[in-house]
């Protein structure tokens, strides 16, 4: 994993750790302490609880039930597989759109170093990312509103029929996905600009002198140097998109029906509205396994590409 970040010209020599054991320990101690108290212990707690039936509202002590929670989820309790599939669609479609748009717009903004007010323009472009997601969700409910929402007023003005975007089961999922894309395309633009910055200028100039067509310049020069950062951007977006919650809660709460119910939304409901702690723990463990699998695939691909490149 750390091999990813080893892009330096001069990697430090290996295994100096043994001769500086005390120092290494002192340097790592604070992070390890944080990690044990706030991650390892809670995770073990979660794992233990997942084998119990425990509801905070009943007042009963946890009751050991073995693998019952896991089996129930596997058998599709609360439409687990349906929600997982919907989440994968959300992640797959969303991250693809954000990557394509982000790379496209990033390339567009690449030559803008001399543009007047570039810093301000980029700040405006990045603003959706730093807007509080809870507020974004609430406000888009307003923009999508079937009666006085701005979007429907625009449709009305164009002579098109009005749509209850968040209330209609056929449009709700895509309406939420559109907001996610609006929020996070700027992040992929940022990553694209960062990736473009890592391309050595000399090679670009050489490509220009050789009159390489743009397509070749992109694949041979830009992607060759920038793919590490671009892949990292896609990885971060995939992880975060899988966790989408604060945007959906104010917009639809997972409805209409289950049309926008992603796994994080359902887990939140089970844990902090129904207080089914045992069941939620098993749910969380499944999600952890899915996330680890996704991340491992990405890291595998990244390392493979690096070795070949």
């Amino acid at each position, binding site marked *: *994993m*750390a*091999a990813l*970040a*080893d*892009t*330096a*010209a*001069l*990697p*430090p020599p290996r295994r100096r*750790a043994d001769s500086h054991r005390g120092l*290494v320990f002192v*340097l790592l101690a604070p*992070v390890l302490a*944080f*990690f044990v108290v*706030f*991650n390892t212990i*809670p*995770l073990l*707690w*979660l794992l233990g*609880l997942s084998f119990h039936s425990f509801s905070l509202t009943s007042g009963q002590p946890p009751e050991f039930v073995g693998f019952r929670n896991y089996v129930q989820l596997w058998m599709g309790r609360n439409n687990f597989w349906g929600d997982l599939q919907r989440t994968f669609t959300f992640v797959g479609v969303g991250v693809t759109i954000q990557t394509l748009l982000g790379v496209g717009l990033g390339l*567009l903004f690449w*030559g*803008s170093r001399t*543009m007047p007010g570039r810093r301000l*323009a*980029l700040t405006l*472009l990045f*603003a*959706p990312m*730093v*807007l*509080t*997601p*809870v*507020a974004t969700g*609430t*406000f888009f409910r307003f*923009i999508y509103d079937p009666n*006085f929402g*701005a979007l429907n*007023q625009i449709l009305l*003005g164009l002579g098109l029929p009005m749509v209850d975007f968040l209330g209609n089961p056929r449009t709700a999922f895509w309406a939420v996905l559109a907001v996610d894309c609006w929020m996070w395309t*700027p992040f992929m633009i940022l990553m694209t600009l*960062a990736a*473009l*910055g890592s391309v050595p200028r000399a090679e670009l100039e050489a490509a220009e002198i050789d009159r390489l067509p743009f397509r070749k310049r992109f694949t041979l020069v830009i992607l060759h140097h920038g793919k590490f*950062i671009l892949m990292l951007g896609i990885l971060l977006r995939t*992880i975060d998109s899988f966790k989408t*919650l*604060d945007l959906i809660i*104010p917009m639809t709460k997972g409805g209409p029906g289950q049309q926008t119910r992603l796994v*994080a939304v359902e887990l*939140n409901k089970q844990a902090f509205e129904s207080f089914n702690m045992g069941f*939620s*723990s098993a749910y969380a463990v499944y999600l952890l396994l899915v996330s*680890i699998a996704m991340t491992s695939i990405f890291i595998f691909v990244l390392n493979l590409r690096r070795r070949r490149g």
Partner: protein
Amino acid sequence: MSWRRSLYHTLLWAVALLWFAPVAWIILSAFKTREDILATPPKLIFTPTLQNFVDLFNRNTSFTTQFLNSIVLSVTSVVIAVAVSFLAAYAFSRFKPRGTNFLMFLLLSVRMLPGPAVILPIFLMYAAFGWKDSHVALVLFYAMFSIPFSVWILKGFLDGVSIRYDETGRVNGGSWAHVIFRVVLPQVKPGLIAAFIFNLIFVWNEFLFNFVIGGVRTQNIPYALAVGTYSDGGLNWTFIAALTTIYLVPPVLAIYAFQKYLLVGMTFGTVRGEV
């Protein structure tokens, strides 16, 4: 060629403004009366009013507390996180102790889990120890949440600083503290700033963790936005618009001021100069 250049710049500005339009709509709404916000068709031209902001201070007495909480929670936790992450990243980068790769991956696992899954065991733990509604407990948790990304960014930057610096410093009789803080630290300043800003914006906007393990004393503004929206029967649009607008100012100023560090930061130390 200058007209093509102008056309290109106009196009870029158009894209930026198009992307900003919904945010601009929120900001405009903050200066509208309730009737103007709900008017159909939507009003682009209206008489601006500051009444919504005045109401914010008068009606919602906890507003200042929540705003202070937002600042204190995000700044304190991220400062702690970046400090300890720098030390750990230095150890990972320079000494490569056994299990570095595994530890780096394990750290990332914190960021891979959906929020409710992360906070569920913490919630039970805090409830059992009576740590809920405490600033210290919340700051420590946010710090833990900011550590993985900080370690990753900083390790990338530290890998880019030649170990010759450390060796020269040591050979010339400098202590480890001198080498780490006086020789190496100044060279990874962009990484420190990038890690700081990214995590700061995250904690600034964080709602779920504050809602679950916080309480009356530790509420931040996203909490107020999520809960206060439903006052007055229906959705209180003037309240949402005014609060969102005020709350958006600090992060927007931050990305304006530190833009080049964000771009350099996301190269994870692979670029030394300006991006």
